């Protein structure tokens, strides 16, 4: 009776002591700042910063590998706290927002009638989607399901609308969209072209009433703020001046694909 009790106790004791000793030898010193930053971060582990989780981002920030404003859902309070922990200057991040760069939806014509699984990823596998426009939104709402903040909904034209107050620019919808028509942009830039079609004018006109036809009216009116490349207009925000005639450009656009938020 004594032998089994003794052997087991001694084994347990030896292993315990061994582990205690090993934990001393193999001790890894962790920077206390990492834990402090970790506590300052939202802790949602959403992955929007591109890291596996908040712990990884905290480490990257503490080692200077990531910017203190790298946390997408975090607000200015979070950045201020991190700046205080690291003893660096406060930094203001330009607020970003997800924008849906298509206005077609119900108004653009269909290529075929789709009967399968109601998901963008599914319909996209079948001949590149059910829309004649190969750049356009198919409107099955993968982005809505992907959004962790409930910020996206479909409007009456079957086009997703992002609620600017709820959007944290986490980028989940950008990843979910098979057509890549949701793009993160600076929220300060109010005017944008709500189309990504690079088709020629004749093609666009035949399949979608609100697509960009690359007519260059905006380019001439704005004095180079709008740039037309590959039959598609875009805004070069670095050239924006205080007297850029936004209103005139928006009104003169023949297909009304330039919008202001």
């Amino acid at each position, binding site marked *: 009776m004594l*032998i089994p009790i003794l052997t*087991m106790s001694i084994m347990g004791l030896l292993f315990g002591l061994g582990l205690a000793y090993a934990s001393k030898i*193999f001790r890894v010193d962790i920077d206390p700042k990492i834990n402090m930053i970790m506590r300052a971060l939202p802790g949602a582990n959403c992955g929007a910063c591109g890291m596996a989780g908040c712990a990884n981002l905290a480490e990257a920030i503490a080692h200077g590998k990531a910017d203190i404003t790298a946390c997408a859902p975090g607000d200015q309070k979070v950045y201020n706290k991190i700046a205080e922990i690291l003893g660096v200057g406060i930094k203001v991040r330009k607020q970003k927002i997800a924008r849906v760069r298509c206005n077609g939806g119900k108004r653009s014509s269909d290529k075929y009638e789709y009967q399968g699984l109601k998901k963008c*990823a599914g319909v996209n596998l079948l001949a590149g989607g059910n829309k004649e426009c190969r750049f356009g939104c198919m409107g099955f709402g993968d982005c809505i399901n992907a959004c962790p903040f409930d910020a996206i909904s479909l409007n009456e034209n079957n086009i997703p609308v992002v609620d600017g107050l709820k959007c944290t620019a986490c980028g989940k919808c950008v990843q979910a969209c098979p057509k890549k028509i949701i793009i993160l942009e600076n929220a300060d830039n109010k005017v944008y072209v709500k189309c990504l079609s690079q088709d020629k004018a004749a093609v666009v006109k035949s399949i979608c009433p609100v697509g960009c036809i690359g007519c260059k009216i905006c380019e001439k009116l704005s004095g180079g703020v709008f740039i037309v490349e590959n039959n598609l207009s875009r805004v070069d925000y670095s050239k924006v001046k205080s007297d850029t005639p936004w209103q005139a450009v928006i009104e003169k656009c023949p297909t009304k694909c330039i919008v202001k938020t």
Partner: protein
Amino acid sequence: MDLTMFLSIIIGAIFINNFILSKFLGLCSFIGISKETKPALYMGVSVTFVTTCASIITWAIYNFILVPFHIEYLRTIAFILVIASFVQLVEMVIKKFSHALYRTLGIYLPLITVNCAVLGVAVLNSEMFFKPGMNALTSFTLSALQGFCVGLGYILVMLFMSGIRERLELCDIPPSFKDAPIAFIIASLMSMAFMGFSGFRF
């Protein structure tokens, strides 16, 4: 110790007596970490490493401590003790020497500490190979091999399962069947398929 013995252990541990699908061991990690292929593979590699090492360590404990003191009946407790301490030690070592490795494999080690598959290998080895008449070297080689092959079988099934579940994400499943219920149904179908390896016995 001949080639047939090796072959029968390899094929037996990977397919016929697959730990997950035939012996139903290690099911919690099987359901829990099989949602994506990459974590499933890493978990499988960690399990393989631990089962191999655990086989070797438990062989030593059994032959050099339990047998001389005639307390073979305490093997379960002794095996739990050594496996748990061993996994803890490995975790510490990995954390110290390779941070990248720790982040890919190390996070699964606490899960393996109390994984029944690892203990299952040790107990199975002790039943199959740790017999009094057996040559020490033979039983050592065979149990290490069996530990390794059980891990391989685990990786195989984890990869099957995670591959299927990744595709399931795109399927239209009734809401009440999503996640765990459909995973259990798939597991049972796979288990029946694996029964084919052992042949049907009525």
